[in-house]
């Protein structure tokens, strides 16, 4: 039986931690996104042709949103669980009558909430630079929530796996960011020469960016249901790994 009070306590505390670092948490992504729009949207975008009937500045919005979403969600969630492990405060969580459900809903829910706030801020920021509309707003919101949930879980696993700060940063820095850049954030994979357009399909981030782009503009590189399927499969895989971690106590209990 889930204790909702415990869950709420973990959730609100994590959000408080976010608010404590609001300056860094909110302003940094806003500034980064603005810079992307200035460079790729205004400076370079003006010389680019429309892609699939979408203005280049608008075309990159889902990709930029995904870039921030993946990075911030993963780091928020991984720090959320890594820091208590690092400082020793995790004793309180482990000795409390809370299980995997309360912990996940609390930590991952808070990381998701932060990411959704950031997504909203980025969309508002983008509106200052580019005129765009969202073709399927409900599906877009659902998709953003799914991706945020999946990468919050992924970040949680990362935060448990990491035993130093270097490991904590290495996955987002060496894998997530490059894969997102190569995942069609700034271009359609149709623009790639052969065989790179086919090789690009091995990059899972392509499906995420493409899926979100479909909810915005109704067209994408990959079928929307394939994107949803891959996102759900990743979500399920992360949940299974976390269930295993809690069952065995790996890296949590001595």
């Amino acid at each position, binding site marked *: 039986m889930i*204790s909702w*009070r415990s869950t709420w306590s973990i959730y609100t505390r994590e959000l*408080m931690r976010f608010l404590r670092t609001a300056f860094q948490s909110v302003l940094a992504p806003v500034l980064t996104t603005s810079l992307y729009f200035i460079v790729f949207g205004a400076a370079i975008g003006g010389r680019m042709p429309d892609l699939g009937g979408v203005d280049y500045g608008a075309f990159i919005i889902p990709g930029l949103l995904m870039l921030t979403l993946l990075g911030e969600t993963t780091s928020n969630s991984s720090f959320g669980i890594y820091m208590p492990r690092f*400082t*020793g405060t995790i004793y309180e969580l*482990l*000795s409390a*009558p809370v299980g995997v459900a309360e912990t996940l809903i609390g930590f991952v829910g808070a990381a998701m909430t932060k990411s959704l706030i950031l997504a909203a801020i980025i969309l508002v920021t983008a509106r200052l630079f580019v005129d765009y509309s969202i073709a399927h707003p409900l599906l877009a919101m659902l998709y953003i929530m799914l991706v945020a949930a999946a990468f919050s879980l992924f970040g949680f696993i990362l935060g448990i796996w990491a035993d130093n700060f270097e490991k904590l940063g290495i996955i987002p820095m060496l894998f997530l960011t490059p894969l997102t850049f190569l995942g069609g954030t700034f271009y359609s994979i149709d623009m790639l020469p052969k065989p790179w357009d086919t090789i690009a399909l091995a990059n899972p981030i392509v499906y995420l960016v493409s899926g979100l782009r479909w909810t915005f503009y109704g067209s994408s590189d990959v079928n929307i249901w394939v994107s949803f399927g891959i996102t759900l499969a990743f979500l399920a895989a992360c949940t299974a790994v976390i269930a295993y971690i809690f069952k065995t106590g790996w890296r949590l*209990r001595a």
Partner: protein
Amino acid sequence: MNEPILELEGLTKVYPGGLKALDSVDLTIRKGEIFALLGPNGAGKTTLIGAVCGLVRPTSGTMHAFGHDLSTDWRKARARIGLVPQELSTDMFEPVHRAVSYSRGLFGLAPDPKRIEEILRSLSLWDKKDERIMALSGGMKRRVLIAKALAHEPDLLFLDEPTAGVDVELRKGMWAIIDEMRERGVTVILTTHYIEEAEEMADRVGIIRQGKLIMVDEKDAMMARLGRTEAHISLANPITALPASLSQYPVEIEEGGTSLCYRGGDGTGRGKAEVADITKALLAEGIDYTGIDVRESSLEDIFVSLLGEEEPA
């Protein structure tokens, strides 16, 4: 007082490296008592606490708290157990009041500002409630950890080295706090390096060494059984042999006949009474003395001697 609230049977913990931190520990804790777990560094004290509190996975053995099996019915059991860790581990950026309120919520209890105020006042933290924990002194930080552990009103509280690194004044303050907990009916299990602390507060004492609980007894009974009185009587004139009237006492001649040494008693006062009888016997024999130095053995002496006896050859 005799109702068991924690029962450990055959509790064993072997760490992946092969270190046996707990070796088939059997222990029963009774409701309302203060139990001191004594042992040298690395004896297994913190592992034992960790196993009960869910921080350590036991290799084998059973644990029951309040009648609940801690391996299956852990939620109900843990809701009634509090832990004050050895390290000052808490979010140092959080204000005191919020940190304590969080602990209450984490254990599934509804917010209760009045109860939190009571706890903070009892620990002299009310004036600091809005301060960040990082701004507090070491002793105050430790009190915050106690407040966090008390926030969900536990019936069983583990204090792992509660006075480590605090000065004498704060240590005595901490003892008073533990005494208040006892009065409120909280059962306390504490580990400590300060044997004086156990002597001052504990009802029962357990001595653990290399993961084995080598002795558990009432503190007073342990003192009575293992306690000794040592007395040195300085004589005005040297003697060469003990008078016959002293033969019934454990007395030896020392320092070339200028001193008598008594080692006996049982920690209940019998030793002091015998020393008084010896002095009367000396006077009756016409043997004058110039000074008496009497010393009762402390729990620390008993602890050290027990560990010495258990030392492998």
